[in-house]
């Protein structure tokens, strides 16, 4: 090997590294000094980082670092600070009455914001992200309420649910008149057409209204009322309005009457704290459906 300091490339006049491949020599062009210094500094920085911050895994734990620096601890501190800032406002939400919250613009905005997030996390799977509902899951934007649409009633439904198994839950269900052999198939068809007539929907030409009225009075009026206006105590829907939870076509109604319905709304008490439930009630009420 030649001593590269004495090996000068004749073309460029620069020294070479002494490396040669098939007559091609490598010029000795070292990295700029600032670059090399920066590179070494990054190594020093990395080692310092290992030492100062928690870094190396040990058998049962890890190195703890120095000066108590830890990104995880920083997050905990920030979360605690956030809690401190929010705590007072959330506490105000917890102590104010539902009606007062709606009257106070600041509290209303807070409850709606909080309620919206919680709704998205917990309620949206059934009721949709905007509360528009789906077949079998009530639309919370309209004005039809199975269990009542006042602030207190909404709060109660969220707290205890419907047919949820909670001690204070709403009870009451649509019986299976066909499956249980209470009504014969042709009676069920008549009942279905009668119910359609209640809300002004067209009926079959062969439909006998008097017969339908009789079947309704004997079997349905107990829950839905003589005029079919429903009963919020039992969650029995109003059959005279334009809103149908499961659908208003004849086939769906026949299915409903013969198989029964018993949708479940879970109870949220115990899963969410009282202030959050309150915020959710205010949010749902403000969606537009509240009464």
């Amino acid at each position, binding site marked *: 090997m030649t001593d590269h300091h004495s090996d000068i490339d*004749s*073309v*460029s*006049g620069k020294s070479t590294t002494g490396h040669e491949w098939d007559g091609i020599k490598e010029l000795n062009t070292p990295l700029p000094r600032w670059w090399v210094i920066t590179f070494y500094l990054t190594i020093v920085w990395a080692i310092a980082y290992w030492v100062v911050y928690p870094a190396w895994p040990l058998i049962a734990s890890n190195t703890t670092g120095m000066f108590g620096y830890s990104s995880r601890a920083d997050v905990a501190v920030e979360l605690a600070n956030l809690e401190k800032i929010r705590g007072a406002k959330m506490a105000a939400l917890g102590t104010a009455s539902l*009606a007062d919250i*709606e*009257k106070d*613009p600041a509290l*209303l*905005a807070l409850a*709606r914001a909080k309620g919206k997030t919680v709704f998205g996390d917990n309620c949206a799977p059934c009721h*949709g*992200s*905007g*509360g*528009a509902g789906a077949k079998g899951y009530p*639309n919370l*934007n*309209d*004005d*039809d309420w199975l269990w009542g649409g006042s602030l207190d009633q909404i709060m109660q439904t969220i707290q205890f649910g419907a047919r949820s198994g909670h001690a204070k839950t709403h009870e009451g269900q649509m019986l299976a008149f066909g499956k249980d052999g209470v009504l014969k198939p042709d009676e069920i068809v008549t009942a279905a057409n009668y119910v359609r007539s209640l809300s002004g929907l067209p009926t079959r030409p062969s439909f006998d209204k008097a017969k339908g009225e009789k079947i309704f009075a004997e079997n349905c009026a107990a829950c839905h009322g003589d005029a079919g206006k429903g009963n919020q105590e039992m969650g029995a829907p*109003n059959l005279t*309005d*334009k*809103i149908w939870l499961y659908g208003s076509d004849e086939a769906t109604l026949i299915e409903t009457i013969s198989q029964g319905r018993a949708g479940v709304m879970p109870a949220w008490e115990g899963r969410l704290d009282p202030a959050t439930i309150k915020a959710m009630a205010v949010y749902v009420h*403000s*969606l*537009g*459906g509240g009464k």
Partner: protein
Amino acid sequence: MNKTVNPKDLASDGDGPLYAAQKKVYPQSVSGTFRRIKWGLMAVCLGVYYFLPFVRWNRGLGAPSQAVLIDLPNSRFYFFFIELWPQEVYYFTGLLIAAAVALFLMNSVGGRIWCGYLCPQTVWTDLFYAVERLIEGDRRERMKKDKSSDPLKLERISEIVLKHSIWLMIAWWTGGAWVLYFNDAPTLVKELVTFQGPMIAYIWIGILTATTYLLAGYMREQVCTYMCPWPRIQAALTDEWALNVTYRYDRGEKRTSVKKAAELRALGEQVGDCVDCYQCVAVCPTGIDIRNGPQMECIQCGLCIDACDNVMTKIGRPKRLIGYDNDINIHRRQEGKAPIYRIVRARTVVYSVIIAAVGGFMVYTLATRSLLDVNVLHDRNPVAVKLSDGSIRNAYTVRLLNKSGYDRVIAIDAEGPVNLTMHVVGADSVTPDRPMIVIPRDATSELRLLVTAPAENNSEKSIPVRFHVMDIGLGVAASATDNFVAP
């Protein structure tokens, strides 16, 4: 095969190197008209920059009392009597357009005079040069000191230390003034000196101290030549009528000493007025010789004019051998015609008209700007809801902006081709007939608005609705249009 190439030939493409290592420029001090203008403008620029944050402006209780303030946390910009909200940043677009066209206008009148007199790079470099001159002496002395083989004398060291300390102080004050525009200046100053200021302020002061020190202390004319795009686009911005610092070669050649010139003149020979004293080169902050014709590096500062004027006065020749001029006039004079100066040309008129139009538009919109604003956003999820009696309801998010300095009571009305009823969530319980709400001063308020149309009007898929909001005390109103949709 192995033909040896001269390494020097590899280093350039024949046009000279793309980048030449910085040759230190030692501008000499000079006095004269343009130098005086430069001092004056420097005082004005620096004065405004350093002291503007301390100017107070009374906006009433609760509002900041700083005349010029960029309030980032609250997204407000205050400029004396003007207060801008985030959605009004288009004023800055107007300002930028006007500023750009003003630069074009300056350029078409006097070349790069912005560069020579007003550009921050020039102003601070000039200031740094003044400090340097004060401490280390003028051109000759500085050159001698830099070349001196014995630089480590105590006197020399203290000079260098003093110069850099003053530079750093200026740079630090420059960075410090910058952050004062973003917070209440007196409070921030107090916080900063007691080390209780926000971290971000210290970081910005650090960054601006460093950049000021480096740009004005070290990079100087290099910034103008290599970093600034202006010299490259200069040709596109200027025309043959623009006045540029020009050596008037029509005043003759050759350039020779005063004595020699007198002798030659006596013999009836041709001599120029230039005595080749190099004063114009010595004072030039970019280190060029303007007698070689217009050059990319020239920032039109006019210092060479002052230098040459001093020489011409001394030797009793007419002044302005170098002056703001253009080639047209040099040729006219050579042909024995009187020079003409055309400031009013198509170009300058168009630029002026654009500036006036943009400025006028801004003034107009500022003057007629509403202090009450409304934005309406239709709910998407669900778009429309059918109610139990068959009527349709749409929900909207209404954002009300009260830009005024007092609380307002606002009434809301909806107007459409059908009979609409309206509810504002939260406000119903207070004023059931006509929704009314209070928006605090200088604040926004977001409301949920429910609009219902009776069943019989639902033949169309979508009908326009107009929302009116009105300050019931002052009658100031604003409105917004959206659609009412059927499911």
